[in-house]
């Protein structure tokens, strides 16, 4: 298997960054990790995951769609789309790696979202297998194996070396482009690492979380559940869960009047917000209960109903640690679960 010694990883990053933009997770001063554009000397974070998910690379929080220039009474419409540059995201965890395929199911089906596709086509996802899962992790519940992450290229770390395996054409091309820096080596030590990780996974408090009772077939039952009132009662209606979530994909389109013209942009929206999907007649979901229900019904019921049973959650656990009032999908699943 192709590998590189961990102490030489910097030279690998330098080599990649020379050809294209490279993003790696780095530690911030406050201890949280975030993706940063690689510059020589940056150290890759060892933490389990980044505070914000990796979806920003393909679906950024705000993005301009079109511009209208106004000169007196004349209006000119400007298409501002540009071909994206090639880039590499390094160190994506299995949960986030899976989230891209969920986003693809939304944005790459007809009608294809050209802005999303443009980025997707130019981005190489290099994922990294987990070794120290946290108590908030529950990716296994969604069939994700954190020791075998998806992505264009998968990587493993045995403490001394990082091993590479290309999964796609794009991935192969990428590995080829850096092959001069890699060596072929024995990957047997990885088996122990994977086994240990799996042992830990089985000890995690959420290891027994089951998705069995969710999916598209019990829509009405869940929709009408009496539990929603109690579950949503303490929700403060902020957007934290949706904004840290790697799979939340809703956006709003807004116009910004610059004084000289209009910039039409889209930005992440949150179903927790009171003006979510507000239309001319008003808002279809008028209470926080309905908005709260929407988020979880979407992930656990509507999404699998439309996508062959695939759930709209990857169990990354970000919402578990970030919700201001500690209400989250796990608590919802456990409360709604039909035993």
């Amino acid at each position, binding site marked *: 298997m192709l590998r590189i010694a961990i102490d030489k990883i910097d030279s690998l990053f330098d080599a990649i960054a020379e050809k294209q933009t490279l993003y790696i997770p780095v530690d911030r001063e406050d201890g949280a990790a975030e993706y940063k554009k690689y510059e020589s000397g940056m150290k890759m974070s060892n933490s389990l995951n980044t505070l914000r998910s990796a979806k920003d690379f393909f679906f950024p929080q705000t993005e301009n769609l079109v511009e209208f220039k*106004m000169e*007196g*009474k004349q209006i000119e419409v400007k298409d501002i789309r540009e071909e994206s540059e090639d880039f590499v995201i390094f160190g994506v965890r299995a949960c986030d790696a899976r989230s891209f395929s969920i986003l693809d199911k939304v944005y790459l089906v007809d009608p294809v979202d050209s802005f999303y596709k443009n980025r997707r086509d130019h981005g190489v996802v290099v994922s990294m297998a987990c070794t120290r899962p946290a108590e908030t992790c529950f990716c296994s519940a969604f069939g994700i194996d954190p020791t075998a992450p998806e992505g264009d290229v998968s990587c493993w770390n045995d403490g001394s070396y990082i091993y590479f395996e290309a999964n796609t054409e794009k991935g192969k091309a990428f590995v080829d482009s850096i092959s001069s820096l890699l060596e072929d080596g024995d990957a047997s030590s990885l088996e122990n690492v994977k086994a240990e990780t799996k042992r830990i996974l089985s000890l995690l408090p959420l290891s027994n979380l089951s998705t069995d009772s969710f999916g598209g077939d019990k829509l009405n039952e869940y929709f009408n559940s009496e539990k929603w009132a109690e579950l949503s009662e303490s929700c403060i209606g902020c957007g934290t869960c949706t904004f840290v979530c790697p799979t939340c994909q809703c956006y709003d389109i807004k116009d910004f*009047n610059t*004084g*000289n013209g209009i910039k039409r942009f889209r930005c992440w929206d949150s179903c927790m917000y*009171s003006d979510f999907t507000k239309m001319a007649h*008003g*808002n279809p979901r*008028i*209470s926080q209960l309905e908005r709260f229900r929407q988020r979880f019904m979407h992930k656990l019921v509507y999404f699998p109903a439309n996508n062959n049973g695939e759930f709209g959650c990857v169990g990354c656990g970000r919402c578990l640690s970030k919700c201001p009032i500690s209400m989250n999908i796990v608590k919802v699943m456990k409360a709604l679960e039909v035993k």
Partner: protein
Amino acid sequence: MQRIGVFVCHCGTNIAATVDVKAVAEALGHEPGVVISREYQYMCSESGQNLVKDAIKEHNLSGVVICSCSPRMHENTFRKAAAAAGLNPYLVEIANIREQCSWIHKDIATATEKAVILGRAAIAKVHLNAPLTAGESPVVKRALVIGGGIAGIQTALDIAEAGFEVDIVEKEPTIGGKMAQIDKTFPTLDCAACILTPKMVECSQNEKIHIHSFSEVTDVKGFVGNFSVTIKKKARYVDETKCTGCGLCTEKCPMKNVPNEFNMGLDNRRAVYIPFAQAVPKVATIDPNYCMMLKTGKCGVCSKVCSVGAIDYKQQDKFIEEKYGAIVVATGFNPIKLDKYEEFAYSQSPDVVTSLELERLMNAAGPNGGTLLRPSDKTHPHTIVFVQCVGSRCDDSKGKPYCSKICCMYTAKHAMLIREKYPDTEVYVFYIDVRTPGKNFDEFYRRAVEQYNVHYVKGMVGKVTPKSDGKLDVQASDLLANEQLHIDADMVVLAAAIEPDKTARPLATMLTTQMDTNDFFTEAHPKLRPVESATAGIFLSGACQGPKDIPETVAQASAAAAKAIGLLCKNSITCNPCVAHSNELMCNGCSSCEKVCPYGAITYQDKEFRMPDRTTAIRRVASVNPAVCQGCGACTVACPSGAMDLNGFSNSQIMAEVDAICK
């Protein structure tokens, strides 16, 4: 879609000389929503206004922008024109391209560019203007006159004559003011008392007029048509209703050495006193600073001699509250203090006096019974020097910057009277300019020179030095003879500058009216609204607005009365529609707005609302009384949710202006 008309005024060359008005009209014509853009010589002229009116009708305009002089000048003119053409007057906005553009800039290119930007801002604002309708509020049919001098008296008489109740608040124990202290009046030389006292009596006898003497205004609330005023009736320790004004107490009081302010301190009065014989109300007043009974509890002579038992040592200040539709300010003037002008030896020699002191010295009711005697030795003065412009026309650091206006004439009067009564007395008047515009004024001055042989010397007195022989060495320059004079004078009379009364400034704050830097009240317009303050319902009478002689004061007093009567005649007045209003759906009921409202215009109610989640809820929401609100906008910023907004200056309008300017 808006249909906006833009009209750019040349203002003759006032604007057109520095702003390319054609280019402005052209540029603004391309703005979104503008359907017509014209320029014209004088937009405010009748034909200019017709241009606007015709365009409104012809193009069915939904908004009008006039690029012209300051909105403070002609906003109302154009609003009225719009209204006449059927457009809501509040759909008119003014871009100030004269005072704030053409007059301050010299470069045509940049001034034109700025004019276009100001025009754009006005267009951006008018896009968001809403038609406003003025509400109405009732008028209390009663007027308050603050100050009981000749100005206040005349105003009160005129208002009472028209059939309205009037209250006069006078801080002294009697009305009459400065005119009561004056001996003769120019240019007719008739006796001031003879023409003033009948008016004072008329005031006291007119049943519509109520005099609050020895009283002060302590608080003013409310607004035009509906002021609520608190008046402090200071304790005079004499029951006004009982005192007959017999004056016995003022003769028996053992405290004899109280400086008599009516005679400018040139003689003494008692601790209980009536300022002068013709005082109105003719009621005694006890001066608590000197009365032994009030200070030590020992005496009580006045109480013993008073046959009607009017003396009341226990009297307290009393506060009364009254409602008025209009308030007339007539607080008058005082001569300035002369301690800054020691070169004239005012504090060194009793023979250096102010003109007002001279009035008392020459007055039959004055300290010398009308015979002019030197204060120092009571001898007849043979040489008298008058010094003009003492403290007037000065650099700010040296005195008052303005001309006190009355000094030239009263000095001519004094000189003439002295020469007539004492032909052996030489009179010198040192002047810078002799200013005598006024009917029969210059003739009067010439008479002093030609008929009475008063020596008018062009020049200024530099120094007055008291000499050991009791004379005063007056050192002065005679600019025409180009020589320095030394005159041995017996008396020197200083024409001290006049200044507004000290009570005017705090009163202005209570009334929320403006004053200039000299503490004269500012009129709403220097030419077109000279007797009104900028605050609706507050009128200005007499010298509180600027230096004036008696005829001018009386004229203004009557003018102010006419304006007040015009207001009081109405049953209700139209309110300013640019007032705050609360969007009840967004209001939190937090009371922030209420706490910053200076008028108490905001109240709260519990109302039932249908909430976004289709439940009903009782919520506490603010509502604004549009008749009370004056439209300052303090509440709009105190309100965190933006529920409170201001008509005519809404958040969105101001932000649109900001955007247009910063574009």
